[in-house]
């Protein structure tokens, strides 16, 4: 193709932002070369070139009312303040505002925060896959046949289906959810509020995406604990286990390498040689899924070499508590003969609440040589872990066996949790597990010493650990290791994801208990919607089950099905997890669930869904199968606030540039929810006007309302708080007014600070949030002897839930994966550098910085043996299907694994067959178990979908 320079200039002018500026000042150099015979004598003034670039810069970076602020509220959780520039109503560019204050002279500041993805949102918001108008499906689902409709028509469709569901089948037929694409305090509250008002089903996100820490909850009582990332700078030893912060914590990763310069030793534990390993002092190449074995081998060395601090274990852990050797149950005050001579009667009087003998636990006090009730448990009158005070002096024995008299006179043998744990540890000596873990005993020794002897040692655990079938046990083993290290507060310890204490938002996302949604277990509800058991039956053999659980496939499956029955629908449950099989009408936002879910989920879901309305700013793979599409705004067009999780101490503000023009007919989630509520109320009133049937206006809901009914003629009043809460801006103003931790701040102060506010001292949960120091949890436990939020009040090694005893998991243990051995490669799909899950996956700017398509990392020896060259099209396959993609040959991949960044939408693969088609999963009985102490269903105790529990074979196509 040939074209003249004049044409080129025309194209240039048509190309965009620069064009407008060109009319005022020449934005570009003249295109005609200047003819000069003697260059040295007649050099033209270079200033016109310089001025052209200056004009271009002015056109891209606006000023005054052309500046807004935003962050990117997708599920990376990083949450960074950006300046957003507009020109002629269109966003031209963004950059980090980089204005976070330095907390102390000896602490690096948090600037500039941000990443490759956030820095190009301005390009994506005008991309070709942006949803511009409401649309209705006019062909079969997934056929891609749409008709543009008005907002009123779209809202009517949604409201009518929700109303019919409420009226004909009850609230549990509706499923209203905002997914991981909008994880914020202000914006996401809209759809949560709508769901709560209607009593709809909502699943727990962290669980279904597999980003929960249930194994940490088991030990610490909560899963989201740890520090702001600047704390890493203060460490002496910092371990990053099952994570890759250089890729998945981009805004915070600088603290690792600044910590290294500050004298800290940085250790990374992952199966693949990833981008974080490259700068580490030590990389530990653990085999995928054997993290728990490795953690316990480190604990074994700590115990064998007595590297632990006994005083710490005695006060802060349940290791001295007594266990019956016959039943393996913890000794509870409720069964003890209180009058026996060797029972310290005074301790009962001092500590035990009279009506809670079952939640009081005993130890052997070496000072009195008597069995004593321990303070601080759920059944304790005193919320302290203190062993010595004015009135008591306990030195609980960590080791020993005794005979204890039960009420009624029966004598039983008892021992300590520590004794039982030590016995279990024998199987995990480094020499014994090295073939499983792939880790040399010399490394285990090095870790045991480093972690216990350093003043400040921190283990940061990533989500990869929990993405294996027995990953909950691995998480627990790592949490137990941190307990053995004896580190809390300023000394380090366990770091998952710190969460701030933010109060006052309940009134935004809910109704203070008057109406609640039907909160479903994430991993169970998605598994059941997608008929996961069928895929598990296909993928896993009897041998796989026996290896990973000790039970036959039939037995294990039977027990899982029994537990599932107990959690179903509105029935009360004791065991299992809540989920609803009644769901039919889906109103979903920013939730590309066919990308995320495993195996043949799509088929199962589409069979159950009678109506699907989907809101997003872009067309996702899931959107293709919707019945109605609702175009939403992006972070640059919305008002919003975001705080948690607590990687930093700031709440960032989304403040759209005042001169920004809307993109298509997109609306904010708040506007959409308000319209739905208005329409629903109108539909109900209209039907009632004809029928005069009260049931058309009042939906009976005994289990999820305080009032017993949901009044549909008061929906708008309730939802909008009498008109005060209708838009995203209203929501932000409400949050600024009602959240204690945001005070004293206004839109103006947050804007002029650079698009954020700093949380005040009230935001710390279990430590003070000091103005000039990094935050880490559990200072209140360390210094003030507060109890942990666990059954015993102590860091919990021992769980005597019958299912845990039956699984031989009452003491911390580790079990191998159930992934099939038939196929040679474990499929490892870590969080991506180039997308946040599926968001930004289709950005051309970002795709050009990759291979432009999904590419799987293959070890060179594997590639050679299979005749695969770099760039070849290959297929990965197992019993669940076959997926084609490009091979990227790299020695960073282990020979027994294939490494593929996750998040690719199925439509990026040939035949629309995404890699999750190959991924099977099975519900883990221990994650299903419930009703024991602090292990009660909720945001701290649910389970994970296991994305790494699959093996595949590989061949050149």
């Amino acid at each position, binding site marked *: 193709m040939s074209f003249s320079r004049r044409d*080129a*200039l025309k*194209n*240039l002018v048509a*190309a*965009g*932002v620069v064009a407008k500026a060109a009319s005022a000042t020449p934005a570009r*150099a003249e*295109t005609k*070369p*200047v003819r*000069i015979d003697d*260059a040295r004598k007649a050099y033209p003034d*270079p200033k*016109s*070139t310089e001025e052209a670039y200056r004009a*271009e810069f002015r056109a*891209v970076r606006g000023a005054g009312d052309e*500046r807004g602020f935003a962050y990117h509220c997708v599920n990376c959780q990083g949450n960074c303040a950006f300046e957003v520039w507009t020109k002629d109503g269109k966003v031209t560019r963004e950059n*980090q505002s980089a204005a976070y204050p330095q907390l102390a002279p000896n602490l*690096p*500041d948090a*600037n500039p925060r*941000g990443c*490759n993805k956030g820095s*190009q949102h301005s390009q994506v918001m005008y991309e*070709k896959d942006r949803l511009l108008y409401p649309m209705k499906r006019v062909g079969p689902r997934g056929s*891609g046949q749409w008709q543009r409709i008005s907002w009123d028509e779209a809202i009517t469709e949604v409201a009518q289906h929700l109303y019919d569901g409420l009226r004909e089948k009850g609230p549990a037929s509706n499923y209203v959810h905002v997914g991981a694409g909008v994880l914020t305090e202000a914006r996401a509250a809209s759809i949560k509020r709508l769901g709560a008002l209607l009593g709809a089903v909502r699943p727990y996100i962290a669980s279904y995406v597999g980003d929960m820490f249930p194994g940490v909850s088991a030990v610490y009582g909560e899963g989201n604990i740890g520090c702001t990332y600047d704390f890493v700078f203060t460490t002496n030893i910092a371990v990053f286990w099952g994570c890759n912060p*250089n890729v998945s914590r*981009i805004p915070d*990763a*600088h603290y690792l*390498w600044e910590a*290294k*310069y500050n*004298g800290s030793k940085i250790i990374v534990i992952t199966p693949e040689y990833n*981008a974080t390993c*490259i*700068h580490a002092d030590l*990389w530990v190449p653990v085999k995928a899924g054997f993290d728990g074995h490795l953690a316990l081998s480190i604990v074994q060395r700590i115990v064998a070499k007595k590297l632990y601090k006994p005083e710490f274990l005695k006060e802060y852990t349940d290791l001295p508590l007594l266990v019956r050797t016959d039943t393996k149950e913890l000794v509870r005050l409720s069964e003890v003969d209180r009058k026996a001579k060797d029972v310290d009667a005074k301790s009962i009087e001092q500590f035990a609440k009279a009506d809670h003998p079952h939640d009081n636990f005993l130890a052997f006090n070496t000072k009195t040589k008597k069995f004593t009730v321990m303070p601080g448990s759920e059944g304790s009158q005193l919320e302290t872990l203190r062993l010595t005070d004015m009135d008591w002096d306990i030195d609980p024995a960590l080791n020993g066996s005794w005979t204890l008299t039960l009420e009624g006179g029966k004598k039983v043998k008892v021992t300590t949790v520590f004794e039982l744990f030590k016995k279990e540890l024998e199987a995990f000596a480094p020499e014994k597990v090295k073939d499983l873990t792939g880790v040399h005993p*010399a*490394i285990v020794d090095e870790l045991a010493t480093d972690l216990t002897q350093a003043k400040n040692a921190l283990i940061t655990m990533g989500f990869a650990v929990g993405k294996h079938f027995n990953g909950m046990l691995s998480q627990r083993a790592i949490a137990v290791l941190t307990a053995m290290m004896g580190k809390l507060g300023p000394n380090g310890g366990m770091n998952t994801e710190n969460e701030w204490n933010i109060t006052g938002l309940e009134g935004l996302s809910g109704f203070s208990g008057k109406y609640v949604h039907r909160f479903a277990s994430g991993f169970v509800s998605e598994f059941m919607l997608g008929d996961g058991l069928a895929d598990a039956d296909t993928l896993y053999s009897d041998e796989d089950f026996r290896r990973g659980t000790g039970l036959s496939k039939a037995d294990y499956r039977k027990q899982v099905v029994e537990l599932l029955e107990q959690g179903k629908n509105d029935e009360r449950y004791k065991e299992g997890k809540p989920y609803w099989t009644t769901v039919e009408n889906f109103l979903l936002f920013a939730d590309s669930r066919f990308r995320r879910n495993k195996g043949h989920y799509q088929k199962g879901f589409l069979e159950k869904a009678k109506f699907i309305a989907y809101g997003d700013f872009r067309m996702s793979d899931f959107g293709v199968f919707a019945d109605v599409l609702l175009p939403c705004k992006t972070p640059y067009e919305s008002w919003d606030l975001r705080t948690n999780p607590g990687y930093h101490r700031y709440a960032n503000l989304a403040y759209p540039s*005042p001169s920004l023009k809307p993109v298509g007919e997109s609306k904010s989630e708040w506007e959409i929810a308000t319209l739905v509520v208005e329409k629903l109320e109108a539909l109900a009133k209209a039907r009632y006007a004809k029928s005069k049937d009260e049931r058309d206006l009042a939906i009976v809901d005994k289990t999820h309302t305080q009032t017993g009914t949901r009044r549909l003629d008061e929906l708008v009043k309730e939802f909008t708080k009498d008109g005060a809460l209708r838009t995203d801006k209203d929501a932000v103003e409400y949050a600024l007014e009602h959240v204690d931790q945001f005070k004293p701040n206004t839109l103006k102060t947050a*804007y*002029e*600070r650079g698009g954020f506010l700093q949380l005040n001292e009230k935001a710390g949960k279990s430590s003070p949030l000091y103005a000039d120091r990094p935050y880490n949890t559990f200072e209140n436990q360390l210094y003030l002897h507060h109890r942990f939020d666990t059954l015993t009040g102590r860091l919990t090694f021992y769980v005597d839930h019958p299912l845990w005893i039956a699984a031989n998991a009452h003491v911390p243990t580790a079990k191998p994966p159930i992934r099939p051995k038939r196929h040679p490669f474990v499929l490892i799909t870590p969080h991506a*550098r180039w997308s946040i899950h599926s968001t930004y996956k289709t950005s051309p700017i*970002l*795709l*050009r*910085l990759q291979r*432009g*398509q999904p590419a799987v990392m293959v070890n060179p020896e594997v590639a050679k043996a299979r005749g695969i060259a770099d760039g070849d099209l290959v297929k990965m396959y197992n019993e669940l299907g076959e997926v084609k993609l490009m091979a*990227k040959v790299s*020695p*960073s991949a282990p020979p027994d694994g294939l490494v593929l960044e996750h998040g690719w939408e199925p*439509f*990026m*693969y040939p*035949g629309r067959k995404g890699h999750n088609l190959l991924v099977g999963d099975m519900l883990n009985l221990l994650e299903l178990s419930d009703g024991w102490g602090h292990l009660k269903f909720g945001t701290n105790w649910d389970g994970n979908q296991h994305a790494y529990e699959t093996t595949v074979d590989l061949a050149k196509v």
Partner: protein
Amino acid sequence: MSTRQLAMVMDLNKCIGCQTCTVACKTQWTNRNGREGMYWNNVETKPGAGFPKKWEELGGGFDDRGNLKEGVVPSRYGDYGVPWDYNSDEILKGAEVHAQTEPRVGPNWDEDVGAGDFPNSHFFYLPRICNHCSNPSCLAACPRQAIFKRDQDGIVLVDLNRCEGNRQCIAACPYKKIYFNPKLSKSEKCIFCFPRIEQGLPPACADQCVGRIRFVGYLDDENSQVHKLVKKYQVALGLHPEYGTQPNVYYVPPLPGPRRFDKTGKPIEGSERIPTAYLESLFGPAVHDVLKRLSAELDKRKKGQPSELLDLLIAYKHQDMFQLGKPRPGFKLPVLK
């Protein structure tokens, strides 16, 4: 030579390969106007072919006697890769999404590949912009004398009025950091964001670098970090000094990386995962001393002793990394009309 010289130091021990710099540069300058295939800033995984592909083998620069060496203009299809686009408008129609030109090579093709054998493989990231050389071979090679070096800061620019698109500069630049604009038929390159510098803003790549690896300042300013790192502590080196162009972008070379493993999986004490010989091929023989100096300072710090050099590299305040002689603009809520 210019009166003053702006310089950049990049600390490769802090680079995380996130390419926020690349994207920042793209949205600032190269997402339009025929520059779509250009990466004024790129980050490549080393060892690796880099961008454009195998640029270190494409010639250019000066020989020992100061004469220009032969060079090659890289191929758009074979060496740079075309900026492929997608049919993402068809997602709505239920279509598969694919690049409309088959991607075969690109600016980050070998990301995270590196060299060696698992588990002793190794790689690191090398971000690259125009070196704004003190002795630019592009300037020397231009038959139109269209390339000039600004006197006030040493920034090397192409005068677009004079450029005729002969591309001698592209062949002559040993770093292959001048690009051909197919829409304009002229050469363009990194301009060190001089319009930003003039307003007190660092170059976009440096300002937005979340790894906080980039220091910017005048080499003759004794208070600037670049002066301290390049001149005082001498821990930052030019890339391929043997090319003879006297680059003004300097690198703190990467430390050897985590210990290698022997056959039993035991870490080998004192082993170098990244071979120093390889680093020498990039940064010249001075790299040995620099690595020793860095290691010695790290040992001091591990023992709790102070180190001004490491304090500099830690960069406690992001704003202190940039010494441009002008304050950065603030944020004021606009009065709405």
